[in-house]
């Protein structure tokens, strides 16, 4: 058994101990995790972006244009102040405005037009009918500006069943995902840590 395995196993068991009840062992591990994660995050952010996209272009390439986003970024720290917090709205507005601008054509193309086109399959196939009925009835379900009565109510009810199928399938896959994670950790404890099976 290596030092790496021992360290990882100790922390793994500490987290698993929460299943019995919360305890100091678990809490200590949790706080160490928070600290290590934040420290990791800090290093990656600074090394990957601040140094390579701000400091180096400014110092070595004399690219003065980066001063603008750097200053705007520094204005974000105004959020930590009680009185001057409003200054942070300026860089935030740039992020939100630019983000909104690029998202409009993307959403329209990728999520509306392409998906609508994919829903219009030949109605000679069962798939085609199911997809079209499912999409329309799901949209009807989420349309709350009209009372869901009569034919519209039946359509919305159909949408409910399509949604239940979707949630059921999602739950099945969620179980699959979570169980895989558990199997992975158990394998580590049984094979690598305890060496029960080679």
């Amino acid at each position, binding site marked *: 058994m290596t030092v790496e395995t021992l360290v990882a196993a100790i922390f793994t068991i500490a987290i698993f101990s929460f299943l*019995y009840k919360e305890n100091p062992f678990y809490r200590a591990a949790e706080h160490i995790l928070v600290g290590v994660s934040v420290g990791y995050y800090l290093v990656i952010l600074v090394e990957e972006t601040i140094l390579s996209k701000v400091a180096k272009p400014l110092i070595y390439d004399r690219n003065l244009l980066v001063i603008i986003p750097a200053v705007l970024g520094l204005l974000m720290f105004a959020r930590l102040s009680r009185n001057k917090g409003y200054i942070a709205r300026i860089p935030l507005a740039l*992020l939100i405005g630019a983000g909104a601008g*690029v998202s409009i054509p993307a959403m329209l193309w990728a999520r509306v037009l392409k998906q609508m086109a994919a829903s219009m399959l030949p109605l000679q196939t069962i798939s085609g009918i199911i997809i079209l009925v499912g999409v329309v009835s799901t949209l009807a379900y989420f349309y709350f500006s009209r009372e869901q009565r009569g034919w519209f109510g039946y359509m919305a009810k159909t949408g409910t069943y399509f949604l239940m199928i979707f949630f059921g399938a999602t739950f099945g*896959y969620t179980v699959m995902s979570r169980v895989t994670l558990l*199997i*992975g950790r158990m394998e580590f404890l049984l094979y690598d840590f305890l060496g029960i099976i080679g």
Partner: protein
Amino acid sequence: MDLSRLDRRVIFVLMGLAVIIPILFNITTDVEITRDTLDIYNEIEDLESGEFVMISFDFEASSYPEMYPLALATLNHLFKKNLKVIGLALFSEGTAIGYTLLSEVAGRYGKQYGADYIYLGFRPQYVSAILGMGESIIKVFPEDYLKRPVEEYSEFSGLSGYDDLPLVVSIADGSMPIHWADYANARYQQKVAVACAAVMVTAFKPYFESGQLIGPAAGIKGAAEYEKLLKQRGIAHRRLFAQSTTHVFIIVMVIVANLAAFRGRRR
């Protein structure tokens, strides 16, 4: 004893046993290959040796046990095909994991950093990163993870945008492939193949059916299918037996709970 209201710690113990006992048997099961995994496999298989492929490690440490077999299988395929691999991460945790995995697998194939593969590192704000690479990859990543200018690597210095990339592969545990579809595929018609956590399949499926994304190889079964296509029997195959039995266990539990509740209501 009211079976429908069992103490949750009893359920935890039973669940633990349901996972541990099959693992101890160390049984490897076979899988049938599905169309979804075959799609992503064929897409990579159709690439010529020496072509560029970008692989984005879009997952966090929390999904490592599930994503590791998928990432491993995909990287094995990319290096087997002698493709020029460009790694990056759009999640901060994926950065270190991606570099570790890339280095580990590349080493097994005798691949050289800078000649056969590079690792660009991490960029935050994935929307601007994905869109920015469409204009210029080197503008978004002037340096690689090792802090060397990308232009210094002769094999990769000519990279412009997505025009030079026949394929992007996203190994994801969250919604990042949807952003690849929304931005890279919608604006630049970039082909994006996905290997994802099982939990995201139903969320991504419309994008696969509409042709915006390729794949997916999903979860541990997807990883096992990929291993089979590569004529390997690795971690994914080994874990499938425990996966199968645990699924059956949960189904049986739900049925037992419902029968117990039904009996209780009748009384």
